[in-house]
C-alpha cells in the first residue's frame, strides 16, 4: 500500500452545503479514510494546512481572509479543486456584485437601526470585504471544477476516487444535472 494522499478542505464564502454533501458519501467515508489522510478541514478543525496532495474548496472569495486562505491552499496543494456553484461562479454571495459595497455597508450599519451602534465595524480583527465577490479561478489557478449546488455525494465520490486512482475525473450522465 502506497503512502496515503493528504487532503485539505475549506469553505470560503459558501454555506457548507458542499461539505454536507461530501458527508453524504456516508459509509464510503471509511473507505476513503483508507486512502487519504485529512489535513486542514472543518472535519477535524486543523487551523492551517501543510503540504497536501489535494485541496477542495467550496464558496467564492468575498473578503481578505478568503484570499489569504486561498493562497495558503494554493501554496500547499498540488491539485486544487473548486467545488460547487459559489466556488465556480461566485453563486449566491455574488448577488451583491451589482451593488456598491459602500451603500451595502451604509444600508446595513447606518440606515437600519439596531446594528453596530451606528458605525461600520472597523476592528482590525475583522477581514475587509472585497468590492466584488469572485470565483476562485479569478484569484488563483484552479485545476478541477466539480459543478453543482451542491454536487451530489455520488458525484464527489466518483470525482475523488477517479483522482485518487490517477484517472482524469469524469462526471458522466446522472452525476451532472442541468435542471
Amino acid at each position, binding site marked *: 500500500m502506497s503512502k496515503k494522499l493528504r487532503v485539505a478542505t475549506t469553505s470560503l464564502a459558501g454555506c457548507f452545503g458542499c461539505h454536507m454533501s461530501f458527508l453524504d458519501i456516508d459509509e464510503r467515508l471509511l473507505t476513503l479514510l483508507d486512502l487519504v489522510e485529512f489535513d486542514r478541514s472543518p472535519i477535524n478543525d486543523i487551523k492551517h494546512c501543510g503540504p497536501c496532495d489535494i485541496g477542495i474548496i467550496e464558496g467564492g472569495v468575498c473578503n481578505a481572509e478568503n484570499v489569504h486562505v486561498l493562497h495558503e491552499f494554493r501554496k500547499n496543494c498540488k491539485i486544487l479543486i473548486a467545488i460547487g456553484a459559489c466556488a465556480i461562479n461566485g453563486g449566491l454571495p455574488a448577488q451583491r456584485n451589482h451593488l456598491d459595497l459602500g451603500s451595502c455597508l451604509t444600508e446595513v450599519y447606518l440606515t437600519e437601526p439596531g446594528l453596530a451602534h451606528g458605525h461600520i465595524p472597523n476592528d482590525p480583527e475583522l477581514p475587509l470585504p472585497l*468590492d466584488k465577490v469572485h470565483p476562485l479561478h479569478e484569484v488563483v489557478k484552479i485545476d478541477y471544477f466539480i459543478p453543482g449546488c451542491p454536487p451530489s455525494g455520488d458525484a464527489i465520490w466518483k470525482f475523488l476516487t477517479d483522482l485518487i486512482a490517477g484517472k482524469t475525473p469524469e462526471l458522466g450522465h446522472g452525476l451532472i444535472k442541468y435542471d
Partner: protein
Amino acid sequence: MLPDNDPRFDAPARKWMDELISRHGGDASRLLQILIEVQEHFGHIPPAVAIRLSGALDIPYARIENVASFYSFLHLNPQGEYRVLFSDNITDRMLGSETLMEQMCQLLWLQPGKVSEDGLVSIGPTSCTGMCDQGPAMLVNGRAITRLTHQRVQEIAQLIRNRTPLSDWPADFFKVDDDVRRSGLLLDNKLAYGEVLHAALAAGGQNIVDVIKASGLRGRGGAGFPTGQKWEACRNAEGNRHFVVCNADEGEPGTFKDRVLLTRQADLVFEGMTLCALAVGARKGFLYLRGEYRYLLEPLRAVLQRRRDSNLLGESILGKPGFDFDIDIHLGAGAYICGEESALIESLEGKRGVPRNRPPFPVTHGYMMQPTAVDNVETFCQAALAMHMGADKYRAIGTEKSSGSKLISVSGDCAYPGIYEYPFGVTVREILQDCGAVNTRAVQISGPSGICVGENEFNRKLGFEDLPTAGAFMVFDDSRDMFEVARNFVHFFAHESCGFCTPCRVGTSILKQTLDKIADGHGTQYDLAEVENLDRVLQTSSHCGLGRTACNPVLHTLKHFRPAYENKLKSLMFSPAFDLDGSLARARQMTGRDDAGAHLKENE
C-alpha cells in the same frame, strides 16, 4: 385594456396604431415589422402599445417582450429623442471612432450607454454598420451617417442640442458612396430589365436549375453551397407553397458589397430572385434587409413598384399565365445572428432570431415550414448573369471549383477602400496592390468569423479551394496591434451571441473576459492555453456557426502574431483576474482602516 393615463398614448396615437395593425393584416407573423414601426414612431416600445398589440394580434404580452428584447434596435424603455450609435468595427476604431464618441459624450454631457437626464439623447456603440470604406460611421435614429470628423461631430451635437429634426440635417451627412474601384462581369453588366427572365421563361424551370448547376455557381454568403443543387432540392421538395428569400442581412463586420449591389443593381437582385421563383415554383419572395440599411427601404420599394408596373413582378409575369411572384421587404433590427439562414427565417416569421436545428434544412422546411430557397444578394445577381451567359461561358471565369466573379469589400489601411470585383482565384497580394496598401501586416478575410492571413500567406488565392470568403477584406498595416484587432472581434461575438445555447452564450463572454484580462496586464500563459480549451468546447457543442468560429480571431492571430500577446502577459504562470488590493479600497474607505490587515499582496 389600455391605460388611458399613458401620456404618450393619446387619440392620434391610437389612430396610428389601428392603422398600423390593419396595414399588417393583424398578422402575428408581422410582429417584428410592426415593432420596428412602433420603435420608429415612439422612439421606444411603450408598455401600453405592447398591451394593445398583444390584444390586436392575439398573442401573449410576454411574446412581444420576448421578441422586442432580442433585437438591439428595439427598446422597451424610453430612449433619447436622438439615439446615436457609433459603429464599433475595428475599421471604425482605426479611423478614430473611439475619440469621436468620447468627444460627443463630452459635448452633450453624458456617459456612453446612458440617456441624458433631459431625455434628449443617448449615445452608445453598435456592431459594424457596413460603412467601413467611408467610416467612422454612426446611426442616428437608424439613419446612417458617414465620414465622421471632429467637426462633423461638433455640428451633430449642435443640431441635437437645437432639437433640429433629422430631416433638416445637411444631406451631405447622409451621403453613402458606392466606391466601386474595380468592376467585372457583375458591376459592368448592361442587361435590360427583364432580359434574363424573358429567356428563362422560354427555357422553363428545370432548364434553369440545369444551367445554374452546370455553371458551378456557389453561394456568395460565405459557405459556398452549390446554388443549383439548392434550387433543385427546393424545387423537388413537397410543400403547399414555395418561397424565395434574399439574405441582405449583411452583418459580417467589414462587408458592405450587398449595400452597393442593392444601391446600384437592385433590378438584377430582384431579377435573380424572380428567376429563382421560376425555378423552384415560388409565388412569394422576401428580401430581408438589415436595419442598418433602413435608408435603402424606400428606393428598393420604388424599384419593386416599377417592376410591378412593367409586369416583371405580380401576376402573369411577362404575360405568362400562372407565373405569379411578388417580393416583400422585411427589415432586421440589429441582430448579426439573423444572417444565419434559419435564424433569418425565424426573424421573418416575426420571432427572435434564434437558429433552428438543422436538418431539416430550409430547402424543405423553411419559411412557415415550407420549402424555401435562401440565397445571398450577390448570389441572386450571379445566378441571373450565369443564366444569361450560359453555363459554359460562366464556368470559364474564375477557378475550377469557384466559378464566376466575387465582390470584395476592401477596408482598413489602404489608399483606396471600396468595392473590387475580381474573378475567383485572385491572390491576396494582387488585391493589396490594387487598393494601395503598403507595409501590410495582415488581412482579415471574410470578417471576424473568417481567416486572418499574415504576410507569408499573401500568395494565397480567394476561392473555395483556398480562402473562402463572403467578401470582407480588412487590411492592417504594421502600425496595428493584432491583439487589439482580435479583442474587438471577440467583443463583437460576445455581444452578438443570441444566448440560446450555453456554450456560446457563456463561452463568448469568457473569451471576452480573458482577452480583457490580458489587455489589463493580468494575463498569463495559462490564459492563452485556456483559449484553446475554450475553442474545443465551442467547436464541439455550439448550436450554430457563431459559437464555432468565435475563437478563430484569437487562434489565427496567435498563430501569426504570438508576440503581440506575449508582450502583454505577466511572466507568472497564473495571475489574478483583478487587482486584489484595489478591490479592498472601497472597504478601507468605508471603515477608515489602513492597517496591514486592510491590504492584500498579489501573491503571498
